[in-house]
């Protein structure tokens, strides 16, 4: 839930900044800076969210660690790429990484969630939304700077819009999922303030 609001907030901030730079500042340079650096924020947020849903501690750590090289990659790409163009490399890499992570999460969930259907889980539907988004926009990002042909770009935008709207609808619907609480087996928690070890190994009970 927290993640959902954070993600929505980030998207809103992106839109506001983009609109502000384009229509108020009337500066395409600021717009490109925002668009090019946005993957850092997006990647960090989604990666942290996904890492919380991974049970395997090593993979969880790996997902968190991958954030730093991705930042370096985005910044390098920002510095080296054409300043007047949106670079497609960071979103492509981001899509690939998230597709793999989400498939792994699905695999884990398939194995571990055995008490209720996954369709009742909020996190599952958030993952589904992102999975559709990243798979659907993969080809969009490949062909992003391919041509300036109007028809082609219109098709690109249609696909992108369709996938983005689908993702946002799924993310919104995820909020209505009725996630059951997984009942874990109760374990014995012995209070630490009571004496149950009143003997020494020499077999003499302590006084």
């Amino acid at each position: 839930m927290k993640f959902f609001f954070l993600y929505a907030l980030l998207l809103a901030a992106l839109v506001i900044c983009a609109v502000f730079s384009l229509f108020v500042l009337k500066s395409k340079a600021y717009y490109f800076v925002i668009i090019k650096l946005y993957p850092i924020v997006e990647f960090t947020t989604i990666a942290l969210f996904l890492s919380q849903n991974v049970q395997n501690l090593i993979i969880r750590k790996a997902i968190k660690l991958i954030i730093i090289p991705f930042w370096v990659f985005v910044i390098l790409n920002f510095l080296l790429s054409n300043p007047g163009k949106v670079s497609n490399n960071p979103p492509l890499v981001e899509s690939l990484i998230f597709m793999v992570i989400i498939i792994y999460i699905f695999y884990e969930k398939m194995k571990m969630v055995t008490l209720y259907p996954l369709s009742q889980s909020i996190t599952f539907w958030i993952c589904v939304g992102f999975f559709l988004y990243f798979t659907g926009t993969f080809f969009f990002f490949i062909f992003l700077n391919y041509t300036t042909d109007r028809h082609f770009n219109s098709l690109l935008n249609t696909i992108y819009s369709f996938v983005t709207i689908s993702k946002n609808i799924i993310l919104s619907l995820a909020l209505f999922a009725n996630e059951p609480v997984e009942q874990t087996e109760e374990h014995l928690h012995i209070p630490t303030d009571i004496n149950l070890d009143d003997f020494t190994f020499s077999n003499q009970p302590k006084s």
Partner: protein
Amino acid sequence: MFFLQVSANSDVSKLMFIGSVGMITLAIGIIVFVIMHQRKVIRYHIQMKQMEAEKQQIFLNASIRFQEEERQRISADLHDDAGPLLATARLYLNENLVNQDKAQQLQSILSAKQILDDAILLIRNISHSLMPPTLKNFGLESATTDLFQKISGSGRINASARFHDYRERLKVEQELLVFRVIQELVNNIIKHSNSAFIHLTQNATTNNIYIRLHHDGKGIVQSEFDKLNHTSHGLGLKNIASRIKVLNGRILFEIDSSQTYYKVTLEIPKISIL
């Protein structure tokens, strides 16, 4: 990207469109597969639970059969041992006794008395095996201390028990179940662990009573207990588990961090559901 640049724009549009649609279809396929497969897993788990319930039913039947056998054994003890003893005593005390001389009468009465004493002892033993009198009259603390003194008295193993806070007694039914669990655990330790000492400690919180057994022999840890509890072996452990369940309590088998002795801890709620 090079191969794309040599094609016409319409071909690339097609490629891009088909690629995107293909990716989305693949993603939907994966999602559907995950949902369907997970449902299968849930069905499998439900089946497993049903099997587990059936297994529990089998154990329950076995337990009832065991109880019936125990009753038959007690009935046999009473019929085969107490019955003949009392019948013999009756023979000594028949109507002809009045016609006998005094010496013979005295002899018959003494013999009958001896036989009746034996019968009383026999019945007492049977009764004690069903419900230890110390437990009934003086409670869990006395019964356990008594049990540990007897074990220690055998000289084979050093056994001691210490109750720190047992001011509020449990209900008699609870005490009996706890005592049976302790008996079973101690029996297992004596039979299988080859330990030199057993020590029992009791303590309590506001809601629960805790009993911990320490021993320095070969023990088991929780995972082994859970495993044995799900196999056809280890009827004693299953009895422990079912008694703990009836008590709404919990049990934990562990090895001490020093790896020198094993601990078994029982948690029994003071509020009875029996």
